[in-house]
């Protein structure tokens, strides 16, 4: 209710767009006037990444890998081909490598130089992934960062951090949680969190 001043008398500024919002709007207006940008295309791009492409895609890949050994082998051998077959190829996901967590290795992904992330599988990266703190610290002290995410590693696990310096995009295949034996891929997919596929989380079993 942006125009309802009566309920929010001390926050009149809230009805005004923030300064960057004004700058973005000005640029959109200019580019639209010049015939270079179609506002409907902008809506379509936003709709795509807000509603259509997101971590549910990656979760389907992981759940299938947990339940289909042949697919898992193909996924680890050629991630791009395997996810393409499921329809998850696209911008910022042209070269995909899937890395598997085991009792010996925990994988974690970062982009220290910018914010590279597998868009077709996980959508647009969350703010923390793009933050200076994550970019600076994930490579130097991954165990401390994992603790901030509430992740407890097994004593046997080494940590392997993947810094996405090129166009390879990394997806972590988390360990399948205990207590999920006999569950189908469709039942497992909701257990696969975005963070588990970046390596800042682990997949957790169904709540008892």
């Amino acid at each position, binding site marked *: 209710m942006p125009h309802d001043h009566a309920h929010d008398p001390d926050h009149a500024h809230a009805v005004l767009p923030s300064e*960057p919002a004004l700058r973005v709007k*000005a*640029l959109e207006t200019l580019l639209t006037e010049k015939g270079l940008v179609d506002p409907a295309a902008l809506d379509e791009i936003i709709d795509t990444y807000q509603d259509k492409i997101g971590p549910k895609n990656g979760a389907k890949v992981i759940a299938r890998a947990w339940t289909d050994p042949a697919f898992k082998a193909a996924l680890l051998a050629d991630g791009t081909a395997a996810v393409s077959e499921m329809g998850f190829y*696209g911008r910022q996901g042209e070269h995909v490598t899937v890395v598997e967590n085991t009792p010996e290795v925990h994988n974690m992904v970062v982009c220290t130089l910018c914010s590279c992330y597998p868009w077709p599988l996980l959508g647009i990266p969350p*703010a923390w992934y793009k933050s*200076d*703190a994550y970019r600076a610290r994930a490579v*130097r002290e991954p165990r401390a960062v994992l603790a901030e995410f509430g992740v407890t590693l097994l004593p046997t696990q080494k*940590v392997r951090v993947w810094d996405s310096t*090129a166009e390879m995009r990394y997806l972590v295949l988390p360990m399948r949680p205990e207590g999920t034996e006999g569950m189908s891929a469709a039942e497992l997919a909701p257990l696969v969190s975005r963070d588990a596929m970046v390596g800042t989380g682990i997949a957790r079993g169904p709540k008892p």
Partner: protein
Amino acid sequence: MSRVHDMGGRFGDGAVIPDLPDAPVFEKDWHARTLAITLAAGALGQWNLDISRHARERLAPKDYSRLSYYEKWIAALADLLVEKGVVTREELRAGHAEGGSPLAERKLLAANVGAVLAKGGPVDRAGTAPKFKMSDNVRTIHPAANRFVAGGHTRLPSYASGQTGEVRAFHGCHIFPDAHAHGRGEDPRPIYAVAFPAQALWGPSADPRDEVILDLWEPYLEPAHG
């Protein structure tokens, strides 16, 4: 030498704040708009991804640190639009067009968005045979810097410069960003996943079992002996 974006290993940034489970994809409407305008402007074909990344990296360090993520995007986009002559500085200042654009015929239409995003832009190319093989020890060049252009775009982070690592995978030949960001063509080069022991990078505070893996183009690498 390095620029402000090259922050891997840096101290002083504080805790990582995970988002709430129900956090929206775009925190603000203008974040979404910025992403969309950037993609749509990219579709005009006046620059490539490496030029676009470099435009963000060469924001003044003060601006880079001060601006939020999508503010950096919009600032870099405005720089590119003016540099490439897509819009004039005067138009940007006024916020209105002084005339049409010959690029208008390249405008990304709503009907084509799905196909363009699905098509992507693969960077693998035919190129030279790889100089290194699996398990080879390699040493990264020092300093980490673009060898063509002073202060130019490069994808070797400073923290991994002058370090010895082990080749773990060969990805074929990819477009070389150091060239591609500066109008020097695609110049495809072999690219490898190289693993560095965490203690070599960070000292004894790191767990001796841990490692960091980076994808590095062959010009960043030299043979390591001994």
